[in-house]
């Protein structure tokens, strides 16, 4: 075969691959967003849909911090609660509109994350426990009666003046799109590569010129932003809440399990995990919590033992095997 022809063919293949990859990325952002936008025509329970979207965003946030850096944040709900209360403060004290307040909720969570950056010096179980302690401390701080003039202390937050079920729903759709975009861009970006290198071997990555501290801090702040936005839109959607409702550690646990079930380090895994498991929870966990807890426990054990990469790893593996068989048959 003449050299020139082979070169052109190879270039075409590379270009095709690039376009396919870009198409997959665009689809990864658009498909969940469009499906959630259309979901209200199928399910009239808007708050259920908002809650699922909130968990999708939280699972993506866990994906960013755990999937890309290996830091498992059991106190992730701290950012969620900070976002909810940031939104409340923005509405009640700054007179912000609901959408602006939701964005400010995200900013508030980032500010909390900046304060908690020293936690990144810890690893493994120590980090998980320290982040949980930080979330509990934040909850106590927010509900302290001495802060009544700022957070309304233990008396709860009231956002009923800006309540809008439709407005919070569409804002949640936009936040889902943003979360998907963040993960897609992160996965393809230089920062994403650096984070994966750090996760695989911190020392080698450092020798290769990766600024380990900056990369981890970036992922930490991004994941806090996502949780803060989720907390903000959730606060808007329910509008009347107490500190115990938005600093409930079950929220962290659900987000982590949803992300693990779907597959961390992937784009769509956490989305599938959150949607499937939350619907299951809402359908069966409500009236038969004992069965749900049993099934939930079994699912977690099965994932930990047999599917550490979650559903996404299995599906990708199956696709690869099919492709290999197809090539062999050809």
């Amino acid at each position, binding site marked *: 075969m003449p050299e020139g022809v082979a070169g052109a063919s190879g270039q075409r293949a590379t270009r095709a691959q690039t376009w396919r990859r870009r198409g997959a990325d665009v689809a990864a952002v658009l498909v969940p967003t469009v499906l959630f936008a259309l979901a209200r025509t199928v399910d*009239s*329970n*808007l*708050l*259920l849909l908002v*809650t699922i979207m909130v968990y999708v965003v939280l699972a993506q946030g866990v994906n960013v911090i755990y999937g890309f850096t290996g830091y498992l944040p059991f106190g992730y709900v701290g950012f969620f609660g900070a976002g909810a209360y940031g939104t409340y403060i923005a509405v009640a004290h700054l007179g912000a509109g609901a959408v602006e307040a939701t964005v400010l909720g995200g900013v508030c969570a980032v500010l909390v994350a900046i304060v908690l950056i020293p936690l990144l010096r810890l690893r493994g179980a120590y980090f998980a426990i320290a982040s949980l302690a930080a979330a*509990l401390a934040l*909850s*106590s701080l927010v*509900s*302290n*009666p001495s802060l009544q003039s700022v957070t*309304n*202390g*233990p*008396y*709860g*937050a*009231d*956002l*009923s003046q800006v*309540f809008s*079920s439709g407005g919070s729903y569409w804002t949640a759709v936009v936040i889902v799109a943003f979360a998907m975009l963040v993960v897609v861009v992160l996965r393809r970006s230089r920062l994403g590569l650096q984070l994966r290198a750090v996760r695989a071997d911190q020392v080698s990555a450092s020798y290769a010129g990766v600024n380990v501290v900056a990369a981890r801090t970036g992922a930490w702040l991004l994941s806090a932003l996502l949780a803060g936005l989720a907390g903000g839109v959730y606060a808007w*959607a*329910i*509008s*009347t*809440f*107490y500190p*115990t*409702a938005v600093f*409930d550690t*079950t*929220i962290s646990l659900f987000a982590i399990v949803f992300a693990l*079930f779907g597959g961390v380090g992937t784009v769509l895994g956490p989305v599938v995990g959150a949607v*499937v498991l939350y*619907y*299951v*929870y*809402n*359908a*069966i*966990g*409500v*009236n038969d*919590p004992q069965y*749900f807890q049993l*099934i939930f426990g*079994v*699912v977690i054990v*099965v*994932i930990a*033992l*047999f*599917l550490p990469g979650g*559903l996404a790893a*299995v599906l990708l*593996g199956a696709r690869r*095997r099919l492709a290999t068989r197809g090539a062999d048959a050809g």
Partner: protein
Amino acid sequence: MKVHRRLLGLAGVCAATGGVVAIAATQAQAGHTRASAASAPKQIVVGTLYASSGAYAADSIPQYDGVKFWVNQMNKQGGVYVAAYKKKIHVKLVAYNDQSSPTTAATLYSQLITQNHVNIMIPDFGSVLTAPAVSIAQDHHQLLFDATASGTVFFTPNNPYIVGAGIRNSAFWPDPLVQFLVAKHIKKIAILYDANDFDAAQAATLDHGLIAHGVKPVYYQSTATTTTTYGTLIDSIAATNPQAVIELGYNTNDIPFLNTLPSAGHKFNMVFTVFPGQLPQLFQQQVGTKNLGYTYTYATPPLVPYPKVNLGLNTAQFSRAFKAAFPSQAVDYPAMAGYGTALIAQEALNKATSFSQLAMRRAVGNASGKLTTAIGQFKITKDGEEEGEFLPVGQVFPSHGGTAIKVVYPTNLATTKAKYPAPKG
């Protein structure tokens, strides 16, 4: 081998998930009912939530039983009378388990309204689990018959879709307690309260009330609602040498507090906690006569009986009938609050001339101050907040191997004299 294990794992997860979805779909189908708007509905759908587990289970389950009791009573009588249709209609109860989670409760309230299309909605126990219902109900123009939430943020002039049908705002609860402390000339008072709406409102009233009588508490401190370890806090309180210690918490706080007192080695002349009066059997079981004896609490129905009522059963009749219907369930205040709240919903259906939520709200407003049920007078403010309930001070006395709570203040309601200071040992 590795591939097979992964596939086996995937099959296991898929089978479990598929099974769950199938069961859930069947349940959802079975629970789905719609009322016809054109004519009288075949049934009045009452929607509520309960918590079978978690922090609020001990109060939520009896409240739910109280509502169930009312539904059974109505159906035995051929249904509830609905004035808008001038006929009795069968009552159907739709209830979901929120497991004490506000997040779960929020989606379930939405489900009750948008999918079960309930006619009457009674939220779960307490402010934390009622809060997610408030804006959703307002948005869907669904009237909430609030049983046990006392949140100050719920009742506003621009929200006609909530009415306090059971419990009074907790900020008013300590008024008789303040009078009692003043009457007993108790000057050194320690107040420990949980940082939540329900307890902080009581603490603030107590603090302001005492200061108005020239008594400044020697200890006034909040703690997290999740607190269950009280040794250090009790030591700090003891260091101020108080005559009376007031601990304001939920039952999950009161029980460990009372159980820690003897082991902490301090003895106080007076100890007050909130929930022994509401859940006496639970406290007898969990705290015991020795630790509970001579402590003080709010006396609530059925400890405070209302023999003359003009709606439903009186307190004694309810206690007997409830015991017969739920032999394993104690007759306590949350059960009575559930029943009392359902009675107010009954009044709304009995009197509303059209079958709309606002017509029911108007009917309830018209009944304010005119009704007495097994839990006392029903009286609401123009914003819908309950203001008729009155909680006297009760003291726990050892009795026949167990305990009995008797009203000790105010004197016109007292059934015995307070034993102050509490006997040592």
